[in-house]
């Protein structure tokens, strides 16, 4: 199938037929009996992996197998924040790699992912926070990534509606101007459309129920639509990575927790940047539809229920109302949960596994969306070459045995 490009001309042409003849974004093929690479999980990271495999590694005999529908898991459930202001060099490398791909993504995919570099503020509410943003801000500078320190007056100038003298007054902020938002669904759809156009099979409503492993080498997967052979298998299943690992016969240093988010009724434009606070723990931005998108912490017990605890809503909303008193009578419109795969050091696992030719890309925890292009890119190269991409190497699951953790959890306290 030849992908018809989106342009002003195609828009005009299709308006003639009342927009009823737009080409389908991707096919719905039956699975073939064998693929060079099988990607398990059709979220953003999995679809990006398939796209870069086809685009940059010349491997187009690829299947993306998704249990539900593409982008229906955490890709469609996050708060859409994109940033690369991490403390450690290894994190800076992978998240900045993603940021650079974000910056040209809409053009590259010929699909508007609505990437908006509206700036992202990390607020500091106490002396410790100021020291933390000082340390992290300088580390970010050393890695050649933009970050600026703002005084409370500068924060007020940027975000006029903020209440600086709330219960835990705002004492400063760390700003990444290149940070911002993207349209989460569009990221999945854009990658799917572009990957499909290069011959990648996207197979939805097909659950992987097991791996075919012979003498420690993976040979393919068992699915609800029969068994499919694969020379290499990449598992990108976020919250269910532990379940997949169990099928393959090993354990991961991961626990799965429910994380929830919510949106308000739509408002006129009022917050033109992303506000994050680790200390009072909330992050807020305004979607292009006008809804305030709000998120915060995860529950701390293992659960696959895709619901957050009810009391967590209060923990999310009360700091928002403190920071932005105008939201006190705002009605929240929708609330939902996703299952996040959290490692002890809050850094991902992009790694080979004890089973040969079986690779895992997981552990992105509460902040994987921002790295969708970078994660897919380095994972695709790792799958194609059989050796982990240099940027991915530090994120091996062996680090939990060697002790070479990349401790972003301790570095940034909570906000991810």
């Amino acid at each position, binding site marked *: 199938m030849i992908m018809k490009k989106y342009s002003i001309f195609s828009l005009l042409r299709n308006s003639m037929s009342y927009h009823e003849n737009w080409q389908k974004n991707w096919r719905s093929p039956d699975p073939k009996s064998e693929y060079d690479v099988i990607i398990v999980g059709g979220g953003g990271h999995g679809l990006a992996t398939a796209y870069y495999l086809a685009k940059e590694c010349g491997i187009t005999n690829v299947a993306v197998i998704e249990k539900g529908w593409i982008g229906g898991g955490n890709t469609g459930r996050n708060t859409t924040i994109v940033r690369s202001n991490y403390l450690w060099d290894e994190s800076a490398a992978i998240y900045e790699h993603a940021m650079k791909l974000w910056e040209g993504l809409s053009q590259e995919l010929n699909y508007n992912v609505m990437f908006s570099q509206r700036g992202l503020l990390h607020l500091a509410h106490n002396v410790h926070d100021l020291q933390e943003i000082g340390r992290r801000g300088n580390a970010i500078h050393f890695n050649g990534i933009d970050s600026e320190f703002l005084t409370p007056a500068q924060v007020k100038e940027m975000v006029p509606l903020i209440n600086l003298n709330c219960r835990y007054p705002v004492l400063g902020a760390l700003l990444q101007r290149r940070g911002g938002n993207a349209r989460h669904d569009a990221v999945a759809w854009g990658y799917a459309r572009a990957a499909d156009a290069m011959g990648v099979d996207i197979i939805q409503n097909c659950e992987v129920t097991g791996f075919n492993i012979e003498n420690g080498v993976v040979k393919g997967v068992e699915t609800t639509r029969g068994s499919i052979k694969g020379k290499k298998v990449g598992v990108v299943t976020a919250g*269910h990575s*532990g*379940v997949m690992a*169990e099928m393959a016969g090993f*354990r*991961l*240093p*991961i*626990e*799965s927790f429910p994380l929830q988010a919510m949106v308000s009724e739509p408002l006129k434009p009022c917050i033109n940047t992303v506000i994050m606070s680790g200390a009072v723990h909330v992050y807020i931005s305004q979607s292009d539809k006008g809804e305030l998108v709000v998120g915060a912490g995860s529950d*701390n*017990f*293992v*659960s*696959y*229920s895709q*619901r957050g*605890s*009810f*009391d967590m809503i209060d923990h999310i909303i009360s700091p928002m109302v403190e920071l932005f008193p105008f939201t006190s009578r705002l009605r929240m419109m929708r609330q939902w949960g996703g299952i996040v795969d959290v*490692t*002890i050091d809050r850094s991902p696992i992009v790694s080979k596994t004890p089973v040969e030719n079986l690779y895992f890309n997981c552990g992105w925890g509460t902040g994987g969306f921002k790295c969708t292009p970078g994660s897919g890119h380095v994972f695709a190269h790792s799958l194609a070459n059989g050796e982990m991409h240099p940027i991915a190497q530090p994120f091996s699951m062996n680090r*939990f*045995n*060697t*002790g070479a953790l990349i401790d972003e959890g301790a570095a940034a306290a909570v906000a991810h």
Partner: protein
Amino acid sequence: MLLIECPWCGERDQTEFTCHGEAHIVRPKNPDELTDEQWGDYVFFRSNPKGLHKERWVHDHGCRRWFNVVRHTHTDIVYGSYKPGEPAPEVSEEALKGGKK
């Protein structure tokens, strides 16, 4: 929101408790002899099942005592609590599938 039974205080709201993860992880008796791999496994690796899970909770806004809970991680149904050292309660076939209590 979960309703959790503290073995000493009875059923209380989840907000009175904190979960501390998988139960019955035993500290190795021979720490000097362990390889890095075994240490890593003990410290960081967890079973993280989608199914029945035995986990440690502490009643920190109550009696402040520790105990274990059996819960299904897909349905979040709690099948019972037991004190440290006590055997876990027997669960039915239905409970294994996440069915009713």
